Structure formats: structure tokens, C-alpha cells
């Protein structure tokens, strides 16, 4: 590969990272607006929509997805911690790396193809489940070790449920949106022909 092609890719990578970070942040704001009552703490909610982007970003963009999630997490953490504390940076790194672990292990277990060919609803459910599992276990282990949380389970259960439900909600909304747009396109093409 030439240096030129690397140079050409750089802006694309930057756009991907910025795009993922932006979508992550927007979903976080939407979650905050819609499901404030479901919040257990600042970082744990019984419904957590941005969890869907974690899995989708890594499925589509691999490490660029991780970079986008990390950037988005740090941007989201900044307003509350102000000083971008070491603790919030560690949580951001963990929450960005956990979907990579989930996708890697899921792809290994289900023998998913590199281009996602043949990916079905069942595999998506497994990825969503693994994403929720890895994220909740890793983050809550850190909370426990760092002394941030009093009990491991009280954080783990709502985070796992929140991530899984949040992912399903976003996937189903996307599913309905795709079906609706396909139906509309079909109707328009049948009207024009």
C-alpha cells in the first residue's frame, strides 16, 4: 500500500470516527431525554439506547468504530467530570473496548463472515447479548475494584438489561425504518411505471 492511499484514507477515517462519536452522543442525549426515569446512576440506566451503536460501530468499522466510541464517550463524560478525570477516561476506554471483545468473540463462536454475509436476526441478537454482557461485566468489575460501586450486582443487572433492551429498541426502530422506506420506494416505482 502506498503512502498516498493512506493519506487519502485519513479523512475518511476521521469522518467515520467523528460520525460514530456524533451518533453515540446524539443517542445518549435522546436516552437522557426519553428515559430519565429509568436512570439508576449517571452511567447506568434500565434502558440505554447508545449501547446499540457500540455493537453496530464495531461490526461495521472495527477499530475505527472503537475510536469513535472512545471519542464520543470522552465527550459525553466531560460535562459531568469537567476535568476529564482519569476515572472517566478509564470507563470510556472500557466501554469502547468491550464491544470489540463482544464482536470478536461472537464472530468466533458463530463463524460470522468478514463481510457479514449471511448475518441473520439470530446472530444480531447474540451480538446484542454479548455486547451487553461484556460491557456490564467489565465496567462493573472496574467500579467494584476502584471502589466506585458498593455492590457488584446492583450495577451489573440494570446495566446488562439496559444495554440489551436499548440495543433491541434501536435495532427494531432501524428495522421498521428500512421496511418503511423499502415499501415506500416500491409504491413509488409501481406508481411511476
Amino acid at each position, binding site marked *: 500500500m502506498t503512502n498516498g492511499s493512506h493519506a487519502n*484514507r485519513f479523512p*475518511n477515517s476521521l469522518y467515520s470516527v467523528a460520525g460514530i462519536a456524533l451518533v453515540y452522543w446524539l443517542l445518549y442525549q435522546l436516552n437522557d431525554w426519553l428515559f430519565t426515569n429509568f436512570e439508576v446512576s449517571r452511567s447506568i440506566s434500565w434502558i440505554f439506547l447508545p449501547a446499540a451503536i457500540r455493537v453496530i460501530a464495531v461490526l*461495521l468499522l*472495527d477499530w*475505527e468504530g472503537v475510536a469513535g466510541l472512545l471519542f464520543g464517550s470522552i465527550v459525553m463524560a466531560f460535562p459531568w467530570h469537567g476535568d476529564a478525570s482519569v476515572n472517566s477516561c478509564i470507563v470510556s476506554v472500557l466501554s469502547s473496548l468491550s464491544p470489540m471483545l463482544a464482536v470478536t468473540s461472537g464472530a468466533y463462536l458463530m463463524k460470522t463472515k*468478514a463481510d457479514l*454475509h449471511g448475518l441473520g436476526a439470530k446472530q444480531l441478537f447474540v451480538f446484542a447479548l454479548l455486547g451487553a454482557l461484556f460491557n456490564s461485566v467489565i465496567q462493573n468489575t472496574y467500579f467494584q475494584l476502584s471502589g466506585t460501586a458498593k455492590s457488584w450486582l446492583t450495577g451489573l443487572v440494570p446495566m446488562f438489561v439496559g444495554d440489551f433492551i436499548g440495543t433491541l429498541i434501536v435495532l427494531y426502530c432501524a*428495522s421498521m425504518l428500512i421496511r418503511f422506506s423499502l415499501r415506500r420506494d416500491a409504491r413509488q416505482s409501481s406508481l411511476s411505471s
Partner: protein
Amino acid sequence: MPKKATSPNYSQTYIKFINLAQAIRELPTFPSLDGAEQQLLNAFAVLWNQKKSVRVLEAMQMFPDISASTVHRRLVTLRKKGMISLEADEENQRVKYIAPTPLAHKYFAKLGECLNKAIAT
């Protein structure tokens, strides 16, 4: 997939996007049924409720306003959508019975719920 640590190929990312969109589109919900499929399913539901079995050949002659070939095509699509299954007769394997699937039972239960709600309001 994550195995590769090199920067991604964007045409590959697009292919992944198409495959992911397809998987998202296929998330299980109640399949959308067209008018003929609904008509068939409703007629079968009445018979299933009376504990009567419905043979494929009978079904093809059951609807005066729908041609036998259309009924057959709709039986195929209903089967693909997971709403009916075809069960072979124990004595004569060539005779096939149309049977409801668990999804069809859920579909009618959901319709019943909607109807109850509509009556209640």
C-alpha cells in the same frame, strides 16, 4: 471483522453495511400479510377452530373469488412467512394438511387482544 488491524477497506465497509441492514430488516416480527393471505388465513382459522383439518387440494377449491393457482402461491408465501406448516397424512404421504404454526396462534391471539381493546374503548 476485528481480526484485521489494518485500516478498513471502505468498499468492504459498504458491503458490511448492506449485510447488516439486511439482518436488521429481518428481525422477527409478525410478517406483513396481503389481502389474499389474510383471507386464506381467516378461512383456515374458522376451520381449525372447529377442529377440522384442511387439505391443500381442498384449500385450492375453497375460494370462489381466488383462482386455485393464486391460492397455491399464497400457501407457499404463508408457509415461507412461518404462518402455516404442511403436514403429510400418516397413511398417504401425498396428502398434505395445512396446520397453524405457533406464530399463527400468536397472530390470532394478538388480533383478539386488539379486538377486545377496541370493544372496551
